[in-house]
């Protein structure tokens, strides 16, 4: 079974930007509501496969996208 992680952002604009960059890079991703146990924010975050974390970080760094943190989903 795949393990998933979510990337949390300061601004919801960054999450949309990220989803676009990951799509362009051919990395599986999905916009999902922020899990309540991670933040009480009402926006959304980007879910990725945990095995892709390093590739994702690389894409975000190259794209200049700021993110708050990456959390594993249990």
């Amino acid at each position, binding site marked *: 079974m795949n393990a998933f992680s979510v990337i949390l952002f300061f*601004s919801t604009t960054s999450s949309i930007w990220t989803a676009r960059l990951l799509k362009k890079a051919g990395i599986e991703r999905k916009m999902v509501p922020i899990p309540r146990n991670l933040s009480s924010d*009402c*926006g959304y975050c980007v879910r990725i496969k945990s095995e892709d974390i390093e590739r994702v970080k690389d894409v975000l760094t190259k794209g200049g996208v700021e993110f708050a943190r990456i959390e594993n989903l249990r």
Partner: protein
Amino acid sequence: MTNPVESADKPIYFDNAATTFPKPREVVDAVVDYMTRVGGNPGRSGHQLSVDAGEIVFSAREAVASLFGVTNPMRVIFCSNATDALNLAIQGMLRDGGHAVTTAMEHNSTIRPLRELERRCGIEVTVVPCPGGVADPAEFERALRPDTKLAVVNHASNAFGIMQSLRELGETCRRNKVVLLADCAQTAGVIPIDMKSDPVDILAFAGHKGLYGPTGTGGLLLSERFDHGRMKPLKYGGTGSNSDSVYQPEFLPDIYESGTLNTAGLSGLCAGTNYILSLQGGVRGIQLHEKELAAYFLARAGERVRGFNSPASAALVETGVVSFNIEGKEPSDVAYHLSDPYNIMCRAGLHCAPMAHETMGTFPGGTVRFSFGVFNTKEEIDYAVSALEEISAMKETP
């Protein structure tokens, strides 16, 4: 005389400096698409229609950022028009005091907030004279002081089409460590601007003029080197982010974008921006087209219309905006006759720019203004010149 353009019932629209018309079909379709297919509130919920709305807004950010050479779409701040954007920049930078420098060609959208801050918050404002419509760079540099926080420069006049050199004035500002705010209400989408090479820190644009979006759109672009911590927000409220805090977020673009954005309008703005980018020759091509129409009109009317005069030197007109008068005629009467019976739409008076008219010697009487857009043609101008010939020959107001 009959209107040669398509049908006599179709108005000839020479008021593109107020707002461009007609809008490209793509813009209308994009607004309808948001309203009928998407409909969600961008950045506020996790459901698909909210995400789709967020995608639309982000596409608009990307389109506008790319038009002005900005790499980071987070540095596009959406406001409701250029005036709203200019108020954010001017009040956000100056409401704690300081000194500002501006030009004698400003629109009221910059000089009114500056004068209000002068009256209420004790800021000081130096207005640099613009003989013939252009600020003298040496005079501009002399006006900068150690406590100057902001220079506010009208890129091109909404009344006369005369341009200030952002490169020259911007380099002066950089040398003196002064933030430059460029009012590009009339030039965004008309004159190419690249924030990577043009030394502008904050650029204000209208979405419904040269970008062919709907009214209710506009914004600011912040250069990579500008520290937005210097510009306080004017509005505080919901941003869809940091919902657990009662304090305004400090990151871009949320710090300045409280409240639901005009998503329908931004959907149209995205389509309008992509439309002008898709035109052959891009923004440079648009400028050449509009300048050519302005020069053609000034030459034809100068030859054929009795008592025609234009206060701006034709060589200085850099956009599709021309101001003129007909000797012995009130500008408002000329505009009224153009509208009825000739069905030509234009604007007369001071164009919310009394200071620019004072500079050009046309205050308080004002001028008639024609402002051309991408859809105007020389045939329409020929028709308008013939109409002006008839109006100039009128003995009295019918």
